[in-house]
């Protein structure tokens, strides 16, 4: 078992009557960014707190590099984490915040200045953290996670509050960490943020994993055989139906066609003299793949109510 893995098996947890985790199982592998995606309340943060030993699961286990987090002597050198960027004593400076963390792990002080440099906070390191913007706090949180040069990283919603420039920086940064061979788990409730960041996605809903797949695989699955057709001729619906396809109007001059490959659509339209300006195979977004998956998950659960 590599040190750079996070392994979650069958986690269950209830808060009173509410089920927070319902058999959560997945593995975060080294060398890639794993997106941890789901709607608010799907159990992402609870899973992360269980991994960190902050919350106790009723069942199941979570291992970091093969060991429970609570058994780690210098945990920040095994798993760097960022749960809540606002968790700062406002009157303490950013540098001092990292300093006490370094002292707690026996990490040399030079790492404090190195990580500050790495996240671009060197210039403001001696200012009170209370005066930081949310984006700066996220950077400080990343610095804290990197302090112990851990083989695994776990970040909860790191894109929150970042400006576009910061988001681009964060993406590149996360990819470079994965390229160094680290296991990186990044949660988000926005699938779009993952599209250009993650290699692998774990989609969760209502406390369990709905999909656990590579991003490419997920996109292929969601693509289906849909075709986008641009025309202002109403006759198109009848023409294609006769060929065995289904055309659904999606805009004033756009249609979505299923059941026919693009070459047969072009042939049929040409044969009936229907004018069109564009026929294109649909390029799905991760957003759509995600909505489809979570939609199904909701459907699947709806009849049973809250179980």
């Amino acid at each position: 078992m590599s040190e750079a893995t996070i392994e979650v098996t069958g986690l269950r947890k209830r808060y009173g009557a509410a089920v927070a985790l319902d058999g959560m199982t997945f593995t975060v592998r080294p060398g890639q960014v794993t997106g941890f995606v789901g709607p608010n309340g799907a159990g992402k943060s609870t899973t992360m707190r269980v991994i960190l030993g902050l919350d106790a699961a009723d069942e199941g286990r979570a291992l970091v590099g093969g060991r429970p987090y609570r058994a780690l002597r210098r945990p920040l050198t095994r798993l760097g984490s960022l749960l809540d960027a606002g968790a700062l004593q406002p009157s303490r400076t950013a540098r001092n915040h990292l300093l006490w963390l370094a002292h707690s792990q026996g990490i040399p002080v030079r790492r404090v200045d190195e990580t500050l440099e790495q996240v671009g906070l060197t210039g403001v390191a001696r200012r009170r953290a209370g005066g930081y913007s949310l984006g700066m706090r996220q950077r400080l949180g990343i610095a804290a996670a990197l302090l112990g040069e851990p083989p695994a990283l776990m970040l909860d919603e790191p894109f929150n509050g970042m400006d576009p420039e910061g988001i681009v920086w964060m993406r590149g940064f996360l990819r470079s960490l994965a390229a160094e061979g680290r296991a990186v788990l990044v949660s988000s409730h926005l699938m779009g943020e993952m599209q250009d960041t993650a290699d692998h996605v774990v989609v969760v809903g209502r406390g369990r994993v709905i999909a656990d797949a590579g991003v490419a695989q997920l996109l292929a699955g969601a693509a289906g055989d849909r075709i986008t057709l641009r025309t202002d001729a109403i006759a198109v619906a009848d023409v294609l139906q006769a060929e065995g396809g289904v055309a659904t109007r999606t805009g004033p001059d756009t249609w979505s066609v299923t059941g026919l490959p693009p070459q047969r659509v072009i042939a049929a339209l040409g044969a009936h003299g229907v004018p069109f300006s564009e026929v294109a195979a649909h390029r799905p977004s991760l957003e759509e793949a995600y909505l489809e998956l979570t939609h199904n998950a909701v459907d699947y659960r709806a009849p049973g109510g809250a179980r």
Partner: protein
Amino acid sequence: MIAEFGRQVRAEWTKLRTVPGWVFALLVAAVAVIGLGLAPGMSGSCGTRGPGSECKPPIGPGGEMVSDGLYLVAQPLAGDGSITVRVATLTGAIAGEHGKRPGLVPWAKAGLIMKASTTPGSAYAAVMLTGSHGVRMQSDFTGDIAGPSDSPPRWLRLTRNGDRVTGASSADGTTWITIGTVRVAGLPSTAQAGLFVASPDYTATAGGPFGLSGVESGPAQATATFDHLARQGQWTASEWTGTRIGGPGNGGPFEHQDYQRSGDTFTVSGSGDIAPLVTGAAGLGVSITQTLVGTFLGLVAIVVVGALFVTGEYRRGLIRTTIAARPRRGLVLAAKATVVGAVSFVVGVVASAVVLAFGVGVLRSHGVYVLPAGTGIELRLVVGTGLLLALSAILALAVGAILRRSSAAVAGVIVLVTLPYLLAVSVLPLGAAQWVLRFSPAAAFAIQQSATQWAQVDNVYAPAEGYFPLPPAAGLGVLVAWTAGALALATVLLRRRDA
């Protein structure tokens, strides 16, 4: 485990010193203790009315401060010998707010004495009848042996044999009961021997109108008539000499003290006490403990820091970062307690050391007589003040970890530590006050007590006068128990609860 603890202590220390508000509060605590200790809030007349007005209580043979006030009717006795007398009557008068009234204080004394000299503080042995403590044999201010609990008329006899003096009493002058034999090392070969009368001040607790001192006190005088005086041994003088030694200051209501002899009967009036010196109602000056009153104010600041040291992390979710960095939660709490306790201890020790080094001088320059305490007691006060602050800080930390709210923790601990003391020294009757100071965390202020309680001195041994019901270490132990209990509960909850 030890390396982990060491690293966590270092991390917590870094946390503590990097929040400017907390450092400020710790400085405030030190300044409060020092400032109130050195503030000239007291003034007195000792030494301010020119030479001779210094308050210098006599030193007894054992080196302790004593009061030595009595009326002595004596003549020299060379070598061994004895003296016998019958105390026929013993009455007294008390001076209150509304003038004199009859009344005999419990420790009024009339009897026989052999004393090294008429110098206050000199060695002595005496046998006496008291106001309400029966017959006693006392020596060198601290020695006290109880005899039969009789009242006048009563025969007394004092016999010297080398440096040993034996006291005896009798109801009829023929059957004698020996009360005790004491060794009086300081008695010269020729001692002053004769009759004496003394009467300490009257004291009583009176629930005053909410002022913090519900104590009434005033001078008192006792008058005894003696007869059947008999002597054995080598008495060199032929006449009796009356001498007033010590006693209440000039201009008191019992200025006029003397003795009258009519045939075989002596009538002697005296004021004052022959006993160890105490502070408070019946004594003189103040104890050095009172210079440490700033401890209470310092404690408030320390408690705020102690509570915020953990509740501040809960308020901002920082506790999760802390626990993620150190998953052994018990270790986190132990390290926090170590750091905040050690820092508070240093604040307490430094501040109280400054007060004890300079405070006594400030008070003396304002004419307040401060009862000196031995180096051992001063050391206990300094270390004790440090421990008091350290334990309060840890208690606040533990309560903060239990409640996870700074407001409730701060208010709770301040109320637990200061309110019982305040109530005990202000409004509570003595019994309730002592009960409260046995069980509440405020019992720990006993560690700051510097006054000694004497059975043979009638004083108001109340918390308000600086006398605690528990001995110093036991009082501190009560706070240790509270703190340990809270810390144990906090550890269990911290382990059990989701962070």
